[in-house]
């Protein structure tokens, strides 16, 4: 039995390919049932997000045959000739497939390193597969482990902390200055995509009071209506700064819009409560010397981008620590998986021994005559005792070999030996052996 993972992500495939291969939520149950036919593929899960499409399958086929099968499924299901996406596909088998899944779930394979959304997406994919009935023992063992790895990575490393976008850095800085943003007032001067994004981020973080100042009064009122804010005219700038705690400036033009004297006057009026200015206009429109005033913190777009770079660097160094956690978890899982696989083998082994023992008992029963219940019980105890004592060292060795992997040649030959013993279950072979029994 093999675990195979086939897929593509934002690095290997352009969005045009990814979107054609992606699965909509509604079609997933049907697709899953088509993928998992019970013979060539016994368990399966499909993870489809905007950055990746991945098929995770458990199969008795060989690696090559399994790949063919999954590729055929993708082409047929999504109506794309294999040639159009084959080059973007990657595939992993067994240990590497497990490692890939763990890394993906922990956000280590994401476009934004350490982002947490993927965790929920894998969870949803698992839930959908479970609902469609395509999850069996192996995936039920594997997925919860992937989640606990992701949780460990999140709590034990800082790979998911530290803001890595300009607007989230702005929010983080605001929190560093003001702690709680709920009672704070934001003043937006001008407009622009990035400014709006920053405002959205701030409002999502609890800011409730928003003032909007624009050169054209209509535009200000338009935006204000959109955000549920208060529109102000440019003449009221100083008094607006006095009211605001966070100021986002995003204005076109070559001259400074927010000047030192504006801010100095506003600081007096606001009794020196801290003021956080974010200048995301290029060229800058907040006079740089404003940053020298006491209790004023001025950040321009370069500052914010520099912080983003530093934070990304930090996340990368934390990712190295996360990889260690993933490695450990992969090893632990492979051990658990082998134990899981050895279970049926051991059960079959015991069954075979019992068959032989009770078979012999039945064959010789006629020489024993009528037995009292006590004697009957004693006979059972006798046989069970012999089976247990004979089987115990072999079972222990099987367990050990399963846990530790087949590292020693004698383990391999040992397993092969027992495979032969179990093969004796084959009726034709056991029939041919029986007459040779000395009894």
């Amino acid at each position: 039995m093999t675990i195979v993972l086939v897929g593509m992500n934002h690095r290997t495939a352009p969005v045009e390919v990814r979107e054609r291969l992606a699965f909509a939520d509604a079609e997933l149950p049907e697709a899953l049932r088509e993928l998992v036919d019970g013979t060539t593929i016994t368990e399966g899960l499909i993870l489809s997000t905007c950055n990746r499409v991945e098929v995770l399958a458990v199969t008795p086929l060989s690696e090559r045959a399994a790949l063919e099968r999954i590729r055929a499924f993708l082409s047929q299901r999504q109506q794309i000739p294999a040639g159009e996406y084959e080059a973007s596909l990657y595939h992993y088998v067994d240990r590497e497939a497990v490692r890939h899944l763990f890394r993906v779930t922990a956000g280590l394979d994401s476009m934004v390193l350490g982002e947490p959304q993927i965790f929920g997406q894998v969870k949803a994919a698992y839930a959908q597969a479970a609902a469609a009935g395509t999850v069996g023992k192996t995936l039920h063992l594997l997925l919860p482990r992937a989640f606990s790895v992701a949780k460990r990575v999140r709590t034990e490393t800082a790979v998911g902390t530290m803001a890595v976008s300009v607007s989230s850095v702005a929010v983080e800085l605001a929190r560093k200055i003001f702690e709680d943003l709920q009672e704070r007032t934001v003043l937006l001067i001008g407009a622009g995509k990035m400014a709006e994004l920053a405002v959205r981020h701030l409002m999502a973080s609890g800011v409730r009071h928003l003032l909007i100042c624009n050169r054209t009064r209509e535009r200000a009122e338009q935006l204000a209506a959109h955000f549920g804010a208060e529109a102000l005219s440019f003449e009221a700038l100083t008094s607006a700064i006095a009211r605001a705690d966070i100021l986002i400036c995003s204005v076109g033009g070559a001259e400074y819009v927010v000047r030192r004297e504006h801010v100095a006057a506003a600081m007096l009026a606001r009794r020196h409560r801290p003021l956080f200015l974010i200048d995301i206009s290029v060229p800058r429109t907040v006079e740089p010397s404003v940053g020298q005033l006491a209790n004023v913190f001025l950040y321009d777009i370069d500052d914010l981008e520099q912080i983003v770079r530093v934070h990304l660097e930090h996340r990368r160094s934390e990712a190295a620590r996360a990889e260690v956690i993933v490695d450990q978890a992969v090893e632990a899982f492979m051990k658990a998986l082998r134990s899981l696989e050895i279970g049926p083998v051991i059960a079959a082994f015991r069954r075979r021994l019992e068959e032989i023992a009770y078979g012999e008992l039945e064959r010789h029963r006629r020489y024993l005559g009528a037995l009292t219940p006590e004697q009957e019980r004693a006979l059972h105890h006798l046989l069970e005792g012999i089976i247990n004592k004979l089987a115990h060292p072999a079972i222990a060795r099987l367990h050990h070999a399963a846990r530790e992997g087949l590292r020693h040649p004698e383990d391999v030959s040992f397993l092969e030996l027992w495979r032969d013993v179990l093969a004796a279950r084959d009726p034709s072979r056991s029939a041919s052996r029986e007459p040779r029994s000395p009894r």
Partner: protein
Amino acid sequence: MTDHRPEAYNLIRGMDRADLLLLGTAIGYALALLHLIVSLWLRETRFGRWPFALPLIAGLSAHTLWLARAAMRFGHVPIISTQEVFALLAWAILVYYLLVQRKRRWTDVLGVFVLPIVLLFVLVALVSTGFKLLPQELEDLLRMPALPLHIGFMMLAYAGFLLAFLAALMYLLQERELKRKRFGFIYRYFPSLSMCETIGHRSLLFGFLMLTFGIGTGIILLRRSDPVFWRGDPIIVLALITWLFYLIVVHYRLAAGWRGRRAALLLIVGFLATAAVFTSARLFGHIL
């Protein structure tokens, strides 16, 4: 057989037991501090607050026991020997820190500033002498019922000013980082500027209130013990100057809304002044 040194023996044994309590106190605080630093460093939160709180509470219990024992043994507030002064001061600081900290996250970096000071004071108490010279008039003073009040107020005032000082220090360090836009340890672990400011502000008000009560009770005490108490005693003058200074700081903060960098600097100066009064009080052999 008779014991040749029963008295000396008892004394040593008694001291030992007391020192053991103080040693236990130091160990408890050290363990709590160590756990705090390690868990901050490793960002390890899954053990929760107990590995921090347990040794701290154990240490505080031993500490309290030691103080109670010292008080019972000599029948007055343990404030005379160097050992007693440092032990009592450390106790007041820790108690006030726990009051400040109780609603905050236990992983707060504030403890990294406060606990070393508390630990240092306990260690100083541990190595310094319990020897005390007690003139007769002081003996009388020590039995006055208002004295424990006075000392309690003063100790809590010091604790409040110390916390205000530390919060101001944290504010300034962090403000510098935010202005320079180069972020490191401070950015990651310090509470926000606004939180530092709040802790500083509350500690200042608390300290000032305690100082006011402390000076009030002190004056009553001195008047009773010495009718001409006022005569240019440097301690009283210094204490009043400190009080006036803090009065001005409090006034400007409350009325004029001083805050941020300048307010933080004032808190630092104020604390250094208080520390100076405290040290000179010891140097001049006074109790304060």
